[in-house]
């Protein structure tokens, strides 16, 4: 069967997201007012005509399970195919060690039975914390046209030293792969790639048989020496969120209309789960500038340079600036809150002052009363 199958990795991994992942895995961290991070990749896949998506999860996946449900928000609730949740415990007996997956290939090896049953010729695989709006159909076409064994999406935009970097030949072939380098150079891998189903199953079985678990070492580096791996250079908006600081920075970036237009291209809509809040209300005493406001908010105080998720209330006299307030946050009257990220259902008491800094935002854990 022609077409692409989607696989999203949403298991626990080391990360600097601190309070935001106390109760959840990366992919279900709220982002941009009314989304979870995984919504972006799910929407990319669905917008490219993908009908079958498997989500590999492990660890604190309760919030991810809640969020995905039957997949109907992304039109993935199907009689055949659709969304398949792949929790690690179903395959636990295959694994020798408990705890986190040592790498992507190990995670795939645990799902080998699932991979064998894939109906489509190609598979697109991605992390769940990549914020991007990319036409995956174009990437697949490039993969087919180049005759590559594997096509990895990468960007010229610089990143961290622990990221993976490619050296590309003029025709796009990956000639070298490096990571944990002192000075990053070349094209940064976005942890998004396309490979044929057949080759995927073959590589994963072979790796499993040799106790190999690392995608970037055992596949990109080792097999990349002999196989044809190509880079697909993406020059649009892409954000990989792995620290609180870059969560904050990449969120605030969306207050810039150009970044927002690139990410929220109406021809490839990003589909959110919840859609039935009433509109937000700005009270006569409220003031709201340079901010993103999701539905269901009640703004009676001052809101400046903020991202408000659904159902946030800012009471009279409160002063909220440069903040990201998750769903259901209540800022009571006369509180002063600057450079703060509040998780869901946080309450800031009347008159309370909470001030973080642009290069060290404060994060308040879910449900806290401050």
């Amino acid at each position, binding site marked *: 069967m022609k077409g692409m199958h989607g696989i999203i990795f949403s298991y626990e991994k080391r990360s600097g997201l601190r309070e935001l992942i106390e109760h959840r895995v990366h992919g279900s961290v709220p982002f941009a007012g009314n989304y979870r991070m995984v919504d972006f990749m799910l929407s990319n896949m669905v917008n490219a005509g993908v009908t079958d998506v498997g989500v590999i999860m492990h660890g604190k996946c309760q919030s991810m399970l809640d969020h995905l449900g039957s997949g109907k928000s992304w039109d993935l609730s199907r009689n055949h195919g659709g969304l398949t949740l792949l929790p690690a415990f179903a395959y636990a007996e295959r694994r020798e060690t408990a705890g986190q997956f040592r790498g992507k290939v190990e995670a795939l090896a645990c799902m080998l039975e699932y991979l064998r049953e894939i109906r489509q010729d190609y598979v697109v695989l991605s992390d769940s914390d990549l914020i991007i709006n990319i036409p995956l159909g174009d990437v697949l076409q490039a993969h087919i046209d180049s005759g590559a064994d594997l096509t990895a999406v990468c960007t010229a935009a610089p990143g961290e030293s622990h990221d993976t970097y490619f050296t590309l030949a003029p025709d796009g072939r990956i000639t070298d792969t490096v990571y944990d380098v002192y000075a990053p150079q070349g094209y940064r891998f976005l942890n998004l790639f396309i490979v044929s189903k057949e080759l995927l199953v073959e590589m994963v079985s072979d790796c499993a048989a040799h106790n190999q678990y690392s995608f970037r070492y055992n596949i990109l580096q080792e097999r990349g020496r002999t196989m044809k791996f190509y880079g697909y250079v993406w020059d649009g908006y892409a954000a990989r969120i792995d620290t609180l600081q870059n969560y904050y920075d990449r969120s605030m970036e969306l207050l810039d209309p150009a970044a927002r237009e690139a990410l929220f291209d109406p021809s490839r809509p*990003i589909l959110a789960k919840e859609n039935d809040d009433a509109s937000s209300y700005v009270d006569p005493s409220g003031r709201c500038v340079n901010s993103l406001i999701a539905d269901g908010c009640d703004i009676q105080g001052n809101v400046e340079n903020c991202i408000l998720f659904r159902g946030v209330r800012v009471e009279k006299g409160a002063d909220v600036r440069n903040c990201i307030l998750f769903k259901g946050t209540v800022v009571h009257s006369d509180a002063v809150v600057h450079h703060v990220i509040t998780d869901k259902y946080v309450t800031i008491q009347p008159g309370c002052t909470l001030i973080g800094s642009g290069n060290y935002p404060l994060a308040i854990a879910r449900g806290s009363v401050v």
Partner: protein
Amino acid sequence: MLLAGGQGSRLYVLTGDMAKPAVPFGGTFRIIDFPLSNCTNSGIDTVGVLTQYRPLELNSYIGNGQPWELDRLDGGVHILPPYQSATGASWFKGTANAIYQNIGFVDLYDPEYVVILSGDHIYKMDYSEMLRRHKETDAACTISVMEVPWSEASRFGIMSVDDAGMVTEFAEKPKEPKSNLASMGIYVFTWAKLKAYLTADEQNPVSDNDFGKNIIPNMLKGGERLAAYEFEGYWKDVGTLDSLWDANMDMLSPGSGLNLLDKKWPIYARTPSCPPAFVGKFADVGNSVVTKGCRVSGEVKNSVLSYNVTVGRGAHVAYSVLMPGAVVEDGASVEYAIIGEGAVVGKGARVGGVPEKAENPDEWGVAVLGPHTVVADGETVAPKAMLDKTHQAHQEARA
């Protein structure tokens, strides 16, 4: 059974291409979301929606009923258009006839009681409370009523009730009302009784086949027990442009009783996925609602902005209702207006005006642009004027 077939001719250009219940309301909703959500919240899981006039938009909006949790294995929401049968075909002649023609549908589910609803009211109501009263009083029909000011009573169907709240008399738009309890057009019937009266009414060739004009008076005459159920809370018939504008403005006044942020009785809607609203650096938003997908760079006061509305820099919007996808370009001014879905007000154009500045107060009114109407840059649309997308001014007198 939800009566949604009306043309809504008094909404003029707004209902040129769609039935009244499909008209957007209050930022996120369409009018029909209110009765549909009330049904869901009241525990009703089978709803028939009777459509007739321009049903395309309404049909696609309701779809499988999923936003209202009415996509059920058994029951759920059903669209019921007029249909052809062996003896011929006919349009729904009146509200009662519409139900008569669908007796087969109701019988399919064999219910004991049927609730009859209108598709043009904005309110939150627990129909199960009304049904409870219906059962307690052992009535054949229970009519939801509310107190209206005596001065307005002659515009409504007025019920006189005894001490126990049973209806003793019904008068449609009486010149000298004996009571100020007005019928809200919401009925609970014992299905067997209703079926008998519908069938009898159908035999009468001069009947209007209407609930208010025929069925209710006939039941009273026939000695049936009719109970009044007094409703307290916000309720508004949004059948006219002015009442539609009023009801939208009620969202902005805390004292009106219309609080859509209240989660205790949620109103559901089918809306597209869009990013959150963006309120720009130079925007000035006060006493207004904004909805996802909006981009606001200008001044917005006392207004309702539906999803995907754009208000450009230096633009000024006051006391207006902007329906989904409406665009007010840079420097334009919109005051006391209803801007239909996808309509565009060009740069520097002016739509509507404040009543205080009107030379002749009788000629002032809310200006209305129909869906997808384009007002060219610098053009002026006077207060009380109506334009549709063909730009033919509608001169008919507005009530």
